[in-house]
């Protein structure tokens, strides 16, 4: 009856204990990372589409309005994917025989739908409404990113619940004037780029989307010369109806904002954004 194990076994035994611990920890970390990884969320992935449609070209290049294609974004929960006809409006005249556009022409000819791959895909038990977001000061770019910089469409954000909650718990940090919803380049106000906002008179009667007027030009100084705001969309403003600048009554009491935080809280009040308690209530998104 002599020694059963070799000298080294002690070191081995203890090392293996430590190792097991490490492996367990490593596993945990990996899974935690995996559930957020693009492999799961498809964040940033460019799905292959029947037509390599470039938002960059159409938005930045040609200056198309978001709503030219996504027509129901203000009216419905569903922003709307343009019917083939929308494409053909132009492409019946230009690029009429570009190979790239063959599927579009085919669809137009046969009446078969184009089969796009959904880029922003929420689970089916989540009920998201575009209309209420754009009517209450959440810009397209906030969720979809700089679409005007995307040659091919991809999801800027994870669209996971934690991401939704992040904003629903503190909407102020993402609010912007409704006149800037479609402005891809909108940046939060700062010292050198302040924003002046005023609440429309007679708060209640006015639709939420029009309850605040904003401008980047000091109203006091500019007076009537407000006509075209530096970054206001050229097309007449979709939400406030007429050209927002022209519609500015000089009488309004403007406040100057130099930080997103101030502006956010100002808008929070005037757009009557619900409290985080309401916004994170389960029935907000699930039924």
């Amino acid at each position, binding site marked *: *009856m002599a020694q*059963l*194990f070799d000298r080294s076994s*002690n070191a081995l*035994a203890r090392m293996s204990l430590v190792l097991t611990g490490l492996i367990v920890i490593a596993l945990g970390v990996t899974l*935690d990372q995996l*559930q*957020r990884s693009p492999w799961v969320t498809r964040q940033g992935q460019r799905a292959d589409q029947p037509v390599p449609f470039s938002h960059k070209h159409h938005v930045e290049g040609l200056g198309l309005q978001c709503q030219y294609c996504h027509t129901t974004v203000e009216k419905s929960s569903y922003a709307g994917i343009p019917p083939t006809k929308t494409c053909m409006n132009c492409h019946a005249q230009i690029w009429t025989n570009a190979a790239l556009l063959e599927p579009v022409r085919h669809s137009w000819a046969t009446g078969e739908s184009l089969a796009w791959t959904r880029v922003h895909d929420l689970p089916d038990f989540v009920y998201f409404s575009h209309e209420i977001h754009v009517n209450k000061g959440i810009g397209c770019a906030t969720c979809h990113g700089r679409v005007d910089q995307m040659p091919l469409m991809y999801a800027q954000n*994870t669209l*996971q*619940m*934690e991401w939704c*909650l992040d904003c629903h718990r503190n909407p102020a940090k993402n609010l912007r004037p409704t006149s800037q919803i479609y402005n891809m380049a909108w940046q939060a106000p700062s010292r050198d780029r302040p924003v002046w906002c005023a609440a429309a008179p007679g708060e209640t009667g006015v639709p939420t989307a029009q309850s605040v007027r904003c401008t980047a030009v000091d109203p006091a100084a500019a007076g009537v010369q407000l006509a075209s705001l530096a970054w206001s969309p050229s097309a007449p403003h979709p939400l406030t109806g007429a050209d927002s600048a022209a519609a500015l009554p000089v009488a309004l009491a403007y406040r100057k904002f130099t930080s997103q935080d101030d502006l956010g809280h100002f808008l929070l009040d005037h757009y009557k954004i619900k409290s985080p308690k309401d916004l994170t209530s389960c029935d907000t998104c699930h039924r």
Partner: protein
Amino acid sequence: MATREVNPHQPGIDPATGEYRVIAPGQTFRSVTEKITRIVLTPYTPLGWFMLIAVAGAGATMLLVAVTWLVLKGVGIWAITQPVAWGFAIINFVWWIGIGHAGTLISAILLLFKQSWRNSINRFAEAMTIFAVICAGMFPLIHVGRPWLGYWLLPLPFTMQVWPQFRSPLMWDTFAVSTYATISVVFWYLGMIPDFGTMRDQARSKAAQYFYGLLSVGWRGSVRHWARYETASLLLAGLATPLVLSVHTVISFDFAVAILPGWHTTIFPPYFVAGAIYSGFAMVLTLAIPLRKFYHLEGLVTERHIDNCGKVMLATGFIVAYGYGMEAFMAWYSASHWESFTFWNRAFGPMGWSYWVLITCNLAIPLTTLWSRRLRRSMLFMFVLSLVVNVGMWFERFVIVVTSLTRDFLPSSWGTYRATKWDYMTYFGTIGLFVFLFLLFVRFLPMIPMSEIRTMLPGAKIKPKVAAEAGD
């Protein structure tokens, strides 16, 4: 132990010490060691063992089938329905956990009370605990509608950022049962380390030596180690005691916290714990009596042990009886219609029969017979009785879970419950699994703690003369 008033010439008394003899005379360190190690280390496995494990294995396979089908089809294959949304699964869960309790009680509480007789039976009692907890722990997982989401009961940082709801007794269960399982396993293994050392040194085959050698983590019996070991064991015992009491208390909360008449009652915690120990000791007997016969351990597991178990059952049985009595009393005394109707329905409603089964099996038979020492020492009787009590305790849970649910607040929603074959397959399947694991245990692990038996042997007595010399 009342040792003083017994006369030293009475049989069963060790004349040397004047104490009850818990193990038969004539045992030495080596004889004990060999007797116990041989069961495991012998290359020859008794045929009976093979036959038994074949049967048990079949049972376990049946369980596997039932659970697979359950996951494929959904819990609808069981009899659960509206309004009886909990059925066999929860009954079995409570029943198994209850059985587990005796093991912890024997190993922990009796250790604290310095009941040395426990030493012979605590090892396989603990094993019983662990296997019972395995069977029990399975049910909360498989009984949910979407078992594959069971991990949502753990507070982990998912991307949903939603968390468990800690007001729910089911969350309490999650922690109580997982803690109970962990601590039981640790305690069990800790207890076996020195014996693994013995096995390592008794084993002839290299494989066995390495196997037990690893398990023994190099135990060499240094008295320093022994000292820390003893402290740790005592501490674990001290922790396991409040734990075991809390676990069944928490499980009783599953019912007591609900507002359902027949569940919503404050007596449940004590009465569940008592019931648990009651059924647990019954199961200990169900296992011990055949075991000692089969492996000729009469010398180590003596009539005395069986007798004591009988006494514990008598005591806990009466606590349970008090529980039943109290329910009846409160039904009348509370003057609450809910209470009185529920109790009436329990005894005389459509499912009344189950109530009378439990009264017969838990009170009528045991509490009348266990008084007699002769019966307590009759192996056959105790074996049968243990089975009877196990049945009775199962029906206690049946009455609580099912009968209460069949008729609650709104008469329009009254219903009934009829178990399906899948319910039975799952239930008997777990029994199969339990026996299967237990048979593996007796074959490969020392079922009686040698180091603890040794302390009770005459050889362990340090001669007074030695002590005297040590004095100066």
